[in-house]
């Protein structure tokens, strides 16, 4: 199993909403609106802003997701880091005008990639572990 395995796992969810990019952008960047569809938060659309999403705590998890705003490109792209369970990932929203509305693509990546300094706290990170997961699973065959 290679130490440099680049088995990045990415989750992509896409949908076309029958609403303008302006409206969708507001729903993605106004804290109170984000709280209505995603989670309670102290988000601000400013690169470098550190914030948290807060879900109801459950046993073994305090319900906090630590984030930092990475990209704010109005009406086009929004990205923030997403740290939960010691697993650092990056969420990227891309808006594209579409017929009758706006296409929204959510890509969450980094399940297997090395992350920047913000996630280097753990001596042995989930990133590396999950990056090697593909190889481990492949060995089953």
């Amino acid at each position: 199993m290679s130490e440099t395995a680049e088995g990045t796992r990415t989750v992509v969810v896409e949908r076309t909403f029958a609403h303008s990019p302006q409206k969708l952008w507001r729903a993605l960047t106004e804290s109170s609106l984000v709280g209505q569809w995603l989670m309670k938060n102290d988000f601000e659309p400013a690169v470098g802003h550190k914030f948290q999403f807060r879900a109801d705590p459950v046993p073994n998890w305090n319900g906090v997701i630590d984030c930092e705003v990475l990209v704010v490109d109005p009406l086009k792209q929004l990205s923030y880091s997403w740290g939960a369970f010691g697993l650092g990932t990056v969420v990227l929203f891309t808006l594209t005008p579409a017929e009758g509305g706006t296409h929204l693509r959510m890509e969450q990546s980094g399940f297997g990639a090395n992350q920047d300094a913000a996630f280097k706290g753990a001596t042995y990170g989930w990133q590396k572990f999950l990056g090697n997961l593909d190889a481990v699973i492949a060995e089953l065959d």
Partner: protein
Amino acid sequence: MVCFVKTANANPVFRALADPTRRAIFEELTRQGEQTVHALTRYAGVSQPAVSKHLTVLKRARLVRHRREGRETHYRARPDALAPVVDWLNLYGAFWRERFDQLEAVLERMD
């Protein structure tokens, strides 16, 4: 989120692998094949009782199996037990699809 977190926490495999040392031990076993507790202790850089404790947790999650040979206990990985972790990652997709449904509802409410 709540649903997916509960699923994650209900999973002994996820709990067992939530600890960095246990992840390291488990992956060392997948890399090197069968190892004695002594070898794993050298690798992990923690005390042997600590390693034994970690191995017990991994064993309960069915991530490793062991056999005794003389005075040594040998451990090996059972990578097939990782399947629930893969499922857990897949749940992230379900999480976002559900949130998109709620986003749709929010957009409808906005003027």
